[in-house]
């Protein structure tokens, strides 16, 4: 075979493969990238969806972890892939509203994606070790005032819910410069951040409740506030942010969403909206999501964009106000 023949062969194969894909989506497996490592909330949310969605769309959904840089590596990869609907991303609060608000040099902006749906929200709480003396937010505030910088809080890294949660809490408690008031100590993962708080290595942590609930129930962590508008079912005695007079903390709510590269066609978006409606009423998905400590919440593409934009704007103005921007 000559070189031209091989090339025509290849061209032919590519041409026949492509229109097929566009006509009846999905005609091949969908790759769903989880931008964090295995075992995390993003990974579990992705695998849970991948477990149920194929029943309603006739093609497998393959979850791949592409971790690194607080979700930026995986997100940038999906942003730069073809908008053919076969490369989707499990977006998270950290990768899509906090990091873009905090960091100017991110390889993408929050609105660089085609939003398909919100999947779930993760209520958050701030807690301290039971070995620490703080019984309430007021006592924590007093401790910070007494020795600025000595009080520490852990996070799963810069640009995570934990990080911004700490900053928001300090801001709400009335400290002008959160960076001076208390010291932020980043760890490699949410698990490590929770562990550091539970063992008393740091003074407090703000985290999604599902990651700290077992330490709370086990008596190592004392929850000080939950950020949901209503009290949380599993923590009926813990006061909400509004009850304590800090309603702005309600913006601190984790979420997972399904997004794709920019410029996906309306047909593909419509296909997914249909599929996800079915998933939302599938008991398996709902039960798994709930048992992981999250609240199932499917939103339409437009509502999802509005939700994320609202959160991003809130965080962005906070970052600008406090001068926290990272170049």
């Amino acid at each position, binding site marked *: 075979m000559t070189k031209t023949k091989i090339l025509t062969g290849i061209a032919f194969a590519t041409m026949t493969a492509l229109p097929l894909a566009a006509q009846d989506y999905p005609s091949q497996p969908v*790759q769903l*990238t989880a931008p964090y*490592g*295995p*075992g*995390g909330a993003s*990974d*579990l949310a992705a*695998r*849970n969806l*991948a*477990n149920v969605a194929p029943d309603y769309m006739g093609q497998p959904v393959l979850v*791949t*972890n*592409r*971790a*690194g*840089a607080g979700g*930026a*590596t995986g997100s*940038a*990869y999906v942003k730069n892939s073809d908008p053919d609907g076969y490369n989707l991303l499990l977006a998270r609060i950290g990768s899509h509203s906090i990091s873009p608000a905090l*960091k100017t*040099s991110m*390889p993408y902006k929050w609105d660089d994606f085609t939003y398909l749906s919100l999947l779930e929200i993760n209520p958050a709480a701030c807690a301290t070790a039971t070995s620490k003396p703080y019984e309430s937010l007021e006592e924590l505030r007093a401790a910070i005032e007494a020795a600025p*910088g000595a009080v*520490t809080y852990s996070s799963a*890294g*810069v*640009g995570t819910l934990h990080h911004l949660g700490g900053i928001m809490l300090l801001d709400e408690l009335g400290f002008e410069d959160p960076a001076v008031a208390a*010291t*932020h*100590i*980043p*760890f*490699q*993962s949410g*698990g*490590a951040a*929770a*562990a*550091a708080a*539970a*063992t*008393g*290595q740091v003074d407090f942590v703000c985290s999604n409740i*599902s990651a700290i609930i*077992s*330490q709370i*129930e*086990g*008596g*190592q962590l004392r929850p000080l506030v939950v950020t949901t508008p209503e009290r949380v079912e599993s923590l009926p005695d813990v006061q909400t942010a509004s009850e304590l007079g800090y309603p702005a903390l309600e913006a601190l709510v984790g979420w997972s969403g399904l997004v794709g590269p920019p410029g996906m066609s309306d047909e593909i978006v419509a296909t997914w909206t249909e599929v996800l409606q079915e998933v939302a009423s599938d008991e*398996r998905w709902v039960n*798994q999501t709930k*048992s*992981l*400590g999250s609240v199932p919440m499917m939103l339409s593409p437009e509502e999802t964009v509005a939700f994320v934009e609202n959160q991003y704007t809130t965080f962005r103005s906070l970052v600008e106000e406090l001068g926290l921007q*990272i*170049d």
Partner: protein
Amino acid sequence: MIENLSDALVLFLNIYNIIALAGGIGIGVIVGAIPGMTSTMAVALTLPFTFTLPPVTGILLLLGVYKGGVYGGSIPAILVKAPGTPAASCSVLDGYPLAQKGQAGRALDIALYASCFADLVSNLSLILLVGYLAQLVTSFGPPENFTLIFFSLTIIASVSGDSLLRGFISAGAGLLLATVGLDLIYGTDRFTFGNSDLLGGLAFIPLLIGLFAIPEILNGYAKRGATGKVAADPSGSRATFADFRYCFRSILRGSLIGVVLGAIPGIGGAPSAFVSYSEAMRRSPNRKNFGKGELEGVAAAEAGNNGVAGSTMIPLLALGIPGDVITAVILGAFMVHGLRPGPMLFEQNIDLIYALFIGISISSLFLLIIGKAAIHMFRHIASIPRSYLYPVVMVLCVFGAYAVNNSFFDIYVMVAFGILGFLMMRMHVPSAPFLIAFILGPMLEDNFRQSLLMSQGSLTIFARSWITWIFWSLTILSVVLMVRRHLAGKSIEKALPVLPEEKRDG
């Protein structure tokens, strides 16, 4: 208690549980044996299957995959110098030279025996000492971790081969490359050059394969590599009971090191293997033979590596804290079933805990049987003609490296480091210090900076507890011993004519 135990037996004694455990170990061994496929990935892939299984069955399946995977990593490390997992990189040091001497079977056997023994010790510690070790865990913070990792780094001196200086240079390069990526503390870019693949840093699996396996493959294309010692048919060599007894002290020591380091969140199998290996070397009369095919080296590395496999569950079960990525996935499996590990689990679901313990305690036996079968299957690899083996291993590495992050970038990294590794091999720069520094470097830096943040910049935090003092003393002790030995070695060298020795890996 008795009642709980009988409940637990009822819960455990179910053919599906046994199948899940054995099947999990089998899957784990095979996946772990593929360079690039780590036990973490295997566990993550198995997780969705457990959604529909009863909790005990599902968790036993995951544990089986994990334990099998930890052991499985040693097989390609010994046979083709391509460690399946980072922790197995230490088994390469003596395992591969043994295979080259035609004793692959013996190395594989002792790796299996050491693994199973260490696994057993670790499981028993989990069951018997969960409460005590959980207490220990809570006293480890960043300063303690820093001193521990600092001590682990002294192994670099042990694996530097004939020149400490070249070993340190290699380690320096490893430390430097480990700083690539997003800065943990401030979130700023370090050496990323605006590349989004570099933001997350260099993944260590491609680096591992690149530095160990590819230079060996390339060397196979050089004339001297091809005419050099090639493994004889290994099917004849077996580890005997005498071999096991010979290595027993190191295996026991490695197991205990693994148990303690495994119980500390965020440490894991690799440092444990390193510490166990360097301790074995320090205490062995055959010190000079380490790195050139010393059976005890393989045993020590594998014991340290597998000694964490049970105790890593301690922080998870006792405190609900996942110490590493694997236990994070297992935590997910618990939560999917509405169970929350932690003290409450012991109160509310003690029958489930006991059922898991029963399963865990027989897993070592299953590992022995399945591992033995795997050795029978894999040992034939060494008899494949080199012309086919090298290229096939290369392609296998490519697939494995790709699978880490589904990214071509990792393949580029692997090939680039393969070529660098070949140059290092020819310049007699040992690659083991590079890798160890690369794995431990970020842990060292992170814990260092976290400690300084905690103390608001005061260095006294590194002496805040008896644990830090212990590790400082150990570090000083091993440095002193090392220097003395080095000086003694020099004076002997000067007295005796140096024998020319065939050594390429350092």
